[in-house]
């Protein structure tokens, strides 16, 4: 009759399987096989339904937390883009430290998405979806910030030496067209790479946050 326990969800079986198996062994002498089979099958169906409901709830919660993290990161990154391109543009065009710092901050935020999702009880799929959503939102908001900054403050941005050099050798008829053309590649890059990294880092963060079951 142990084979019937395989009908239960793996996570449920891991927690209650041994106890349920022992109980079935205790009940076998007094309970009919048909009644036991019927009850175990019904129990397995309920366990799957419960797990499905719990998974939906925890996944939604993980996505909400991921969106909150992504929104905060987007605000900070967008403010940084305005600051470094418009308010305090670098005279040397060298923003390596800021760019590396921003990437590290985004990676940490995607890891945090997983930690928060894990604490919300999300499973592997929920963590991946939450990280993917957070990464895509950060990617889209980053490129949106660049589009806005480059078009609204074109007169300031177009004074960057890299833009002047790039435009001169681009063959484009206007600086605006050259800059917007140049944003398509990074737009796809940010969205796809941050989405993919978000899925992986969120999964890692969720696994880190998972506490061991009481023995």
């Amino acid at each position: 009759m142990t084979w019937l326990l395989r009908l239960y969800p793996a996570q449920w079986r891991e927690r209650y399987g041994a106890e349920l198996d022992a109980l079935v062994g205790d009940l076998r002498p007094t309970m009919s096989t048909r009644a036991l089979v019927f009850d175990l099958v019904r129990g397995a169906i309920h366990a799957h339904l419960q797990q499905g409901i719990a998974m939906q709830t925890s996944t939604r919660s993980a996505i909400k937390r991921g969106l909150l993290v992504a929104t905060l990161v987007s605000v900070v990154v967008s403010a940084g883009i305005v600051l470094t391109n418009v308010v305090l543009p670098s005279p040397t065009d060298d923003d390596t430290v800021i760019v590396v710092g921003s990437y590290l901050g985004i990676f940490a935020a995607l890891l945090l998405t997983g930690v928060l999702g894990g604490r919300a009880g999300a499973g592997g799929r929920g963590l991946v979806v939450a990280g993917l959503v957070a990464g895509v939102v950060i990617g889209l908001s980053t490129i949106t910030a660049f589009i806005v900054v480059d078009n609204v403050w074109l007169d300031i941005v177009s004074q960057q030496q890299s833009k002047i050099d790039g435009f001169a050798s681009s063959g484009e008829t206007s600086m605006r067209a050259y800059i917007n053309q140049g944003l398509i590649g990074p737009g796809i890059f940010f969205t796809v790479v941050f989405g993919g990294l978000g899925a992986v880092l969120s999964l890692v963060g969720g696994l880190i946050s998972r506490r061991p079951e009481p023995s």
Partner: protein
Amino acid sequence: MQPRYAEPSVLVLASLCGGPKHGYALIKDIEEIAGTTLGPGTLYGALSRLERDGLVEPLPSRDRRRPYRLTPAGAAVARASLEHAQRVATVGLKRLAAFA
């Protein structure tokens, strides 16, 4: 508003009011107090939901037979459920007396 629990969960809570019990002891105790036999799948379905909601907690396991005990939140839900059942029974019996 407190969530309502199905009959097997209430029976488990009522049984655990008498102290910690493992699965087999729960089934036998519920047979005695309610005259109904819960199957193992039904019992563990109820136990898993009650544990998830923090109404019962597992104790260290002996020979794969893990006892469970009521938590303070479980005791409160057990009291509310049993008082509700008592109110329904009282009203029902009164109406039945008038009907007869």
